[in-house]
């Protein structure tokens, strides 16, 4: 199963085994079919935010490996007039808190934990999740055409 690890610069607090403990990273898993509505919304928002100018040069990039970072995903969506950035972040938060991430491989990352970390960190996490599991494979299949 494909996963990626998001490491925190500062540990976060969460409940585990009856105690409050500190976690250093979250292992994220790919979304499940039951989360198709949220992933669909995020994917659509990202592709609407992609610049359309310069498409004529796309043929030169065919079959190249596409790499996109979480920061680039957030930048594109935040600067697009076609998308609603707050709605994008809200949907992203809802998705990454829906049993797709485990802190230190123990407890699920939940909305309560998400609401108690710094906003910058949460947005970075959302960007990385979307880059890794939602848009990268779609971009790769597009460039192979």
């Amino acid at each position, binding site marked *: 199963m494909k996963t990626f690890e998001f490491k925190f610069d500062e540990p976060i607090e969460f*409940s585990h085994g*009856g*105690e*409050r403990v500190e976690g250093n990273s979250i292992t994220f898993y790919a979304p499940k079919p039951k989360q198709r509505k949220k992933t669909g919304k995020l994917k659509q928002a990202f592709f609407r935010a992609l610049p359309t100018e310069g498409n004529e040069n796309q043929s030169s990039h065919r079959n190249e490996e596409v790499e996109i970072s979480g920061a680039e995903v957030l930048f594109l969506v935040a600067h697009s007039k076609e998308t609603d950035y707050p709605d994008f972040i809200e949907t992203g938060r809802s998705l990454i808190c829906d049993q797709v991430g485990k802190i230190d491989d123990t*407890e*699920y990352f*939940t*909305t*309560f934990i998400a609401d108690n970390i710094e906003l910058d960190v949460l947005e970075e996490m959302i960007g990385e999740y979307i880059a890794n599991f939602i848009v990268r494979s779609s971009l790769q299949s597009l460039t192979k055409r």
Partner: protein
Amino acid sequence: MIQLTDATFIVNNEAVPTIPNSIAFTEGLGEQSMKAASIGGGAVEPIYANDLETAFSMSKAELPSTPELIELVKIWKTNRNNNVVQIVGETPEGTLTRTFARAALTSDYEVGIGTDATIPVEFKSISAV
């Protein structure tokens, strides 16, 4: 001053839906007693004692009787005392946060079935922080 009328009941990192006005807790400071010790001449000396047997916290709430919550409460019960309960409430004037570690559902809780039925849950834990 504004009365705190609403709070979030969190168990093991998950915010749980509760029936309004059903959340309550004790700080876990225990009970104390005061006895008189005679020092002669009709005078007494007060002896203060802290009853450590009662120095546990209680946190409780009533949950709606949904299949999902019925299953969740069963998991809390089988977790024995490996649960953490948090109560977080705020008004424009301030915030209340209490954490109850090593929490257990000690009683054999009742699951109500019906239109207005609820699941009252009561955790016992080490003193709140």
